[in-house]
C-alpha cells in the first residue's frame, strides 16, 4: 500500500512541481520585476532580493518596490491604454468574423455523411499543423500592392493598374491574418458541439410546422452555444496578445499590446515596464481565462 501511494504521489508531484516552477513562479517574478526600477546592471533592474544579505537588506530591498511603472503605463500621455483598447477591439471584431466564417463550415461538416467526416476534420486540422509563421507569411505575398490579389483584380479589370488596393500594412490585413490563422480553433469546438446534436429535434420541429430558419434559431443555435463560447474564447484570448500578425501584416498605426510589449522589451530594453504591461494584460484577460478554464474542465474531465 505504501508503495502504491508513493507511486500515486509521484504521478501527481512531477507535473505539479514542473508547472509551479515554470509557470506559476515565473509570474510571481514578472510581478516583482514590474514593481522594480530599471538599472544599468546585469540583470537590468533593481532591487534584487538577496536572502544571504540578511533581514535588514531584505527589508530595504522591499521598501524600494513601487508602483511607478504602473502609473507610467496607465498614464494617458503614453500609448499603452490605447494599445490595450485597440487590442481588445481588434480581437473582438476578429472573433466575431471567425464566428461568422467558421459557423457555416462547422455546420456543413456536422451535416456531412458520417463516412467523410473524419476526412473533412483532417482537412481542417492539416493547415493548423503547418507553421503559423508560414501561414501569415503566405498572406504577405497575396495582399501586398504588387501581390497576387491586386494582380488578379487588375487582370479582371476591377481595379485600375495605377491604383492597387492598399491592404497590407492596414488593420484589414490584421483581421484577415487572425481569421485565417485561428479558423481551425473556431471550427473544431463548433463542430464537436453541432455533431452531438440530435437530428430528430429538427424533424420534430419541421413536423410541427416550424420553418427551417426559426428551427435553427430555436434549436440548433442554443444547443451549439457551448461550442460558440469555447471557440470564441479560444480565439479571443490569444488574439488580444497577438504579436506576429500585427507585426507582419499590420501597419505602423496598428496598435496592439503584444507588439508594444515586445518593442518595450527588445527595443527600449525596459524589462520593468514590459513586466508591468504583461501584468496588466493578464489582469484584463483573467476573467475570460478563468471562464475558459471552467468550460474546458467541464468538457474534458466530463464533470
Amino acid at each position, binding site marked *: 500500500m505504501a508503495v502504491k501511494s508513493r507511486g500515486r504521489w509521484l504521478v*501527481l508531484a512531477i*507535473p505539479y512541481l514542473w508547472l509551479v516552477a515554470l*509557470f506559476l513562479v515565473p509570474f510571481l517574478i514578472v510581478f516583482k520585476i514590474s514593481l522594480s526600477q530599471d538599472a544599468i546592471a546585469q540583470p537590468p533592474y533593481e532591487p534584487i532580493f538577496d536572502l544571504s544579505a540578511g533581514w535588514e537588506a531584505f527589508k530595504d530591498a522591499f521598501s524600494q518596490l513601487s508602483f511607478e511603472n504602473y502609473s507610467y503605463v496607465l498614464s494617458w500621455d503614453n500609448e499603452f491604454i490605447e494599445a490595450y483598447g485597440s487590442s481588445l477591439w481588434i480581437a473582438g471584431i476578429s472573433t466575431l468574423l471567425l464566428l461568422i466564417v467558421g459557423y457555416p463550415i462547422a455546420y456543413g461538416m456536422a451535416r456531412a455523411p458520417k463516412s467523410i467526416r473524419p476526412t473533412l476534420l483532417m*482537412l481542417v486540422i492539416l493547415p493548423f499543423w*503547418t507553421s503559423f509563421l508560414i*501561414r501569415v507569411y503566405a498572406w504577405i505575398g497575396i495582399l501586398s500592392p504588387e501581390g497576387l490579389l491586386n494582380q488578379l483584380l487588375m487582370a479582371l479589370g476591377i481595379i485600375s493598374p495605377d491604383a492597387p488596393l492598399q491592404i497590407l500594412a492596414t488593420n484589414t490585413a490584421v483581421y484577415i491574418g487572425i481569421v485565417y490563422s485561428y479558423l481551425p480553433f473556431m471550427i473544431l469546438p463548433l463542430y464537436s458541439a453541432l455533431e452531438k446534436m440530435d437530428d430528430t429535434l429538427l424533424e420534430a420541429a419541421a413536423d410541427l410546422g416550424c420553418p427551417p430558419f426559426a428551427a435553427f434559431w430555436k434549436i440548433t443555435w442554443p444547443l451549439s452555444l457551448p461550442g460558440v463560447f469555447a471557440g470564441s474564447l479560444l480565439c479571443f484570448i490569444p488574439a488580444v496578445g497577438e504579436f*506576429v500578425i500585427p507585426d507582419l501584416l499590420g501597419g505602423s498605426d496598428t496598435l496592439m499590446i503584444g507588439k508594444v510589449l515586445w518593442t518595450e522589451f527588445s527595443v527600449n530594453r525596459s524589462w520593468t515596464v514590459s513586466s508591468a504591461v504583461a501584468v496588466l494584460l493578464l489582469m484584463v484577460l483573467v476573467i475570460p481565462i478563468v471562464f475558459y478554464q471552467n468550460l474546458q474542465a467541464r468538457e474534458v474531465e466530463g464533470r
Partner: protein
Amino acid sequence: MRKGLSWFNVTSIALGFAFLYIPIILLVIYSFNASRLVTVWAGFSTHWYWQLFQNQQLLDAAWVTLRVAFLTATIATVLGTLAAITLTRYGRFIGRTLFSGMVYAPLVMPEVITGLSLLLLFVAIGLDRGFWTITLAHITFTMCFVSVVVQSRLVTFDRSLEEAALDLGCTPFKTFFVVTLPIILPAVISGWMLAFTLSLDDLVIASFTTGPGATTLPMRIYSQVRLGVTPEINAACTILIAIVTVVVIIASVMTKRQEMERQKAERLAAAEA
C-alpha cells in the same frame, strides 16, 4: 428527412476549404518560380531549393529546431500524460483547482506573457540562455496541450478494464503499462506530434528564451520575412509543409488502422463471451 447536405452546406465547406488552402497552395507554387520577383511567374525552376541547401545558417537553424522539438515532444508527452492521469483519475485532492488552472491556462495564454515570464525566471536563477532554456520553455507550454489530448481519451475509456486488472492482483504500475497505455496510445502519439509541431512552429517564446548560439528556424525565417518575400523562404516553407503533411497523413492512417483492429478485437471478445 434532411440527412444529406444542402447546397448551402456544400458551398460553405467548399469556400471554407478554399480559404484555408489557397494561400498555402500559392506559396508552394511560387517556390518553383524561376524569377526572383515573387509575384511574377517566369517558369518552373528548382533553383531556390538548391540555393536553400547551400544556406548553412538556415540548415543550422533547422537542426537546432529539430533537436529542440524532439526533446520537447518526448518530455512533454510524459509530463502531459501524467497530468492527464491525475486530472481524470485522482478525484479531488488538495490544490486540484490550482493544478487544473495551470494545465488549462497555457492553452490560451498570450505567448508574449509566457515568453517574458520564462525569460525573467531564467535570468533570476542565473541559467545560461540557449538550447536548454528554449527546450524547458517549450516543454512547459506543450505539455498542457498533450494533457488535454490524452485526457479526452482517458475520459471515454472503460475503467472496468483497469479495475479487472487490479482485482486480479496486477500492480497499479503494471496495470498502466499493460492495460491503460495500449488503449490510450493513439492519443499519446497524437499528443507527441502536437507537441512536436508546436515546438517546431514557435517563434515568440523561443525568441524570448534564447541566447547567443541558439537560433531556431522560425526565428531565422522571421528575420528574413521582415525584409520581404523571397523565393528561398517559399522553398523552405514548402519543405516544412511537405514534411508535416506526410507525417500527419501517416499518423492518421496508423490510428485509423489501430482503431479498426481494436474494434475487431472487441467484437471477437464479445462473440466469445
